[in-house]
């Protein structure tokens, strides 16, 4: 089939619709309705988080201070740029620019994948620092003023997070560590759900890329499917816009810390501490 003939015919309308406009507006509405459920889904997690933050502000501040803000900052711009590229893909589809569709969809996928890689690195660094909520306990030897040692049992997580916070220069007096663990549970659950939605989004974008390769978008009326994909992707970006201040900036961070932490993520240790 010659490349141009498909674009000249109007796109076939599904059998249960009367015309293309009805089909397009219904597809849009369907995605918006689904996004309503997503808002409520994340909203539930945020509501639980907020309740505990109101009860334990000091501990949540401390937990946030132990997070890698460098990676989060870079990720913010990656995700924002991917929102841009996704929107540009809509315009390409609307104009019938097949190369543009594939280019911008691919760019979105790449940016999303880099986000996920950095996020994975962040989780790995958290694991290395021992910041995984656990019920394990360890016995430590605490030095007494008179030089002798007595054994004390502490939560393994509490030990690890105290070490990390002291490294970042955060004063942990008066911070009750089990509540910091609660913060970290929410950190993993909320960012984890976000990661899951990104993975699904990248999967769907890849599917649309394959469809574009199969000339599905030769009919420019089918731009609406890229549009609803971008609605989902923008929503994922929106969730991140909430996660960043709530999780990462609840506690104190400096730009210098962020740069150091990002260097750590890339494996370029600065040796400062």
């Amino acid at each position: 089939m010659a490349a141009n003939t498909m674009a000249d015919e109007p796109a076939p309308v599904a059998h249960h619709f009367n015309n293309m406009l009805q089909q397009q507006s219904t597809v849009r509405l369907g995605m918006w309705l689904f996004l309503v459920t997503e808002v409520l889904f994340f909203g539930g997690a945020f509501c639980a988080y907020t309740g505990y933050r109101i009860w334990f502000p000091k501990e949540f501040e401390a937990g946030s201070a132990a997070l890698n803000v460098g990676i989060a900052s870079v990720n913010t711009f990656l995700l924002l740029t991917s929102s841009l590229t996704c929107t540009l893909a809509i315009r390409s589809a609307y104009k019938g620019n097949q190369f543009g569709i594939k280019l911008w969809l691919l760019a979105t996928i790449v940016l999303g994948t880099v986000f996920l890689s950095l996020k994975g690195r962040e989780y790995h660094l958290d694991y290395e620092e021992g910041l995984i909520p656990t019920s394990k306990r360890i016995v430590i030897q605490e030095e007494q003023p008179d030089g002798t040692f007595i054994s004390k049992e502490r939560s393994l997580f509490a030990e690890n997070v105290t070490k990390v916070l002291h490294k970042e220069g955060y004063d942990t007096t008066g911070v009750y560590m089990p509540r910091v663990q609660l913060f970290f549970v929410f950190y993993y659950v909320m960012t984890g759900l976000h990661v899951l939605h990104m993975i699904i989004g990248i999967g769907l974008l890849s599917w649309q890329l394959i469809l574009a390769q199969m000339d599905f978008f030769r009919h420019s009326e089918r731009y609406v499917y890229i549009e609803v994909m971008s609605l989902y992707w923008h929503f994922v970006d929106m969730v991140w816009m909430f996660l960043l201040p709530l999780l990462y900036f609840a506690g104190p961070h400096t730009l210098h810390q962020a740069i150091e932490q990002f260097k750590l993520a890339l494996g370029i240790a600065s040796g400062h501490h």
Partner: protein
Amino acid sequence: MTKVPELHYTPQMVPMPELPPEQEANRLHYLNHSYGIFSWLLTVDHKRIGLLYLVSASVFFLFGGLAVALVRLNLITPTGAILELDQYNKAFTAHGTIMLFLFLIPVIPGVLGNFLVPMMIGAKDMAFPKLNLLSWYVWMAGAMFFVWQLTVGGLDTGWTLYPPYSSKYSHTNVLYAGLGIFITGFSSILTAVNIIATIHKMRCPGMTWSRLPLFIWAMYATSLIQLLGTPVIAVTIILLATEKIFGVGIFDPALEGDPILFQHMFWFYSHPAVYIMILPGMGVINETITCFSRKNIFGYKAVAWSSVGIAVVGFLVWGHHMFLAGQGYYLGLLFSILTMLVAVPSAIKVFNWSATLFKGSISFEAPMMYTMGFLVLFTIGGVTGLYLGVLGSDIHLHDTYFVIAHFHFTMVGGMLMAWLAGLHFWWPKMTGKMYSDFWSRLAAVVAIVGFIMTFIPQFILGYNGMPRRYPNYAPEFQFLNILSTAGASIQGIGYLMPLFYLPASLFLGRKAGGNPWMATGLEWQVPSPPPMHNFDSTPVVYFGPYEYSMPNGLGQLEKAGMIFSDEESTIAHAGQSLPEVIRGS
């Protein structure tokens, strides 16, 4: 924009031109146009998907019934007749979870909603037919996985899954059972998206919002609740699972968590969930009560908006399940007041239905018997809810059999009766066959009598202090418990009877024809069983959904030369010039 000529008054019923027997025998419709198991398992036809839901929901209903048989038999003696203590916990949990998640929530939206929503609005199918089929598969996957988990090890937390018992102390399959519920929740969401999009975008010309059958308004409100509430229980189950898998304390007070937070999040969905269950039932009642009193609904707007009102206000009252849990005192007061408020839209509906009956020409076929049962039993259920909604009296009645009786009156006396009414009302449409009038009426009587005998004693038991979910009870309660169990057996017979005469009608029943009840509504304007694409040409609607007033109005108008029907469709439409003298209700 298409301009639909305004017609002030004409009934929607069209005497159905019946095809001669030879043509009727060869007519292609949605059941016989393709054969084979894959034509059913891979169908995107909303009518076939509705039947798929019918078969599976009925099977799950039987499972739930078996579970409660165990419970009620055990309660014959004060110390437990047939079950061990932990088995009893598993039995009532199985009954609750199966009946709620695998029957009451999906049955009317899945069966009648899928089958009727496109037909009632004059569309050829739902907005997203493939999504519709996916919804059934997701539901079946979750439901079968859930039932499997119940069978291998069970669930003993009660359907409410409260932590820290469910996350820390229970040795049953909380995690996998929770996963099953999580998966079925997706099905709810997909169906809701489909129904809302369909109602907004696929109505036929002339089908304005105020001409929609009230069943559609009810399905719309139900879908709104499903859309807004289900995600919250999804995230709650995820948090519960995280707590259980990783041994951390999200809701565990020993680990800095708050068990009441779980209850807030759980009931944020689960209270609106009961409106997901009852609203479709109320939608069915609108259809049957108008048909079997041969009368227009009294107060169309009031009933329509009260559906939306229930959906909205239903989200503001969840704390009435937590009056004794330890939530804030002032918040409890607020929830109590709002609970009083949420009873109002339901009461409005009951008043309007009663007014619809008034001076109607009432006949008591099986759908109407179930409808009458609904009216009485749902009203009792509703008003007893008020006792529970008042904070002060709830202190005495919370977690007693009074609560159980209340929600069984609304869910079984209300919703189940409405489902049976709907099943019996639309069975001839779905299958083209009419069932036995005698056996269906008898089954209705048996079910309703059995129901009353089962649950009225439970109000008395609860008021006198018998706690719910207990396998043992004080000896003075035994007589009422035996009465309740006896009633349950009679009720069970009443529910089993349709399992016989309904399938029997497929082989032995007389052909129903397009409109055996002489009902209004677009679904009755096509032959039974309906054609593949519902309508041979797009219907055009000129009048409201319940114009029962003039039985042969179209014939008379035709005689007067005021309207004509053309060869393209069997539905009459208006001519170019129309006298203004026709006035209607």
